[in-house]
């Protein structure tokens, strides 16, 4: 049982870390604000869920697991809302998405 939990934690933490890193690269290399927003906010939420789940599996049934679950719920609620609020603010200020004409 211990081995299964450890293995699951490893997998979750490594994929979570990988997603977080991909999000960071996306935020740096994407050409336009809205695309960067997309990269950053999606991977933020997903990476958070994976990493925190990985740690919860290690914590067992304890107060720490409840606190981690609470952190996960609040981040799940606020990350997408913050992304929405930010994109809305940019739209309100009429920041235009970059349009590129592709020549076939």
């Amino acid at each position, binding site marked *: 049982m211990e081995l299964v939990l450890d293995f699951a934690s490893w997998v979750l933490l490594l994929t979570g870390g990988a997603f977080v890193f991909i999000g*960071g690269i996306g935020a740096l290399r994407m050409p336009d604000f809205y695309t960067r927003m997309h990269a*950053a906010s999606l991977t933020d939420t997903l990476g*958070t869920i994976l990493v925190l789940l990985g*740690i919860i599996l290690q914590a067992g049934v304890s107060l*720490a697991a409840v606190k981690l679950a609470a952190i996960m719920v609040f981040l799940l609620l606020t990350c997408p809302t913050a992304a929405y*609020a930010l994109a809305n603010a940019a739209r309100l*200020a009429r920041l235009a998405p970059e349009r590129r004409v592709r020549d076939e």
Partner: protein
Amino acid sequence: MYLAASVAILVTMALALARALLGPTVYDRVLAVNMFGTKTVLLLSVIAFLYGRPDFLDLALAYALINFIGVLAVLKFVQDYALRHQEPGEES
């Protein structure tokens, strides 16, 4: 395993900082701050377990709650700014 996750999170924090310093518009910088905040929460949780001190999770919880407020403050500020100035918000 905690070590690998914390290294990934730290590197992403550096990347977010790069975006905050580079970003041509202010919204890029706010995006970077928001990302940095979530990564800080994750880093605090992972390192709390690395240290073996789960009672330090209070900090991560406090910050997860507060991170939201900064972004909403920016939204309100921009809304008022746009109302006052009535111009496109491209700043550098």
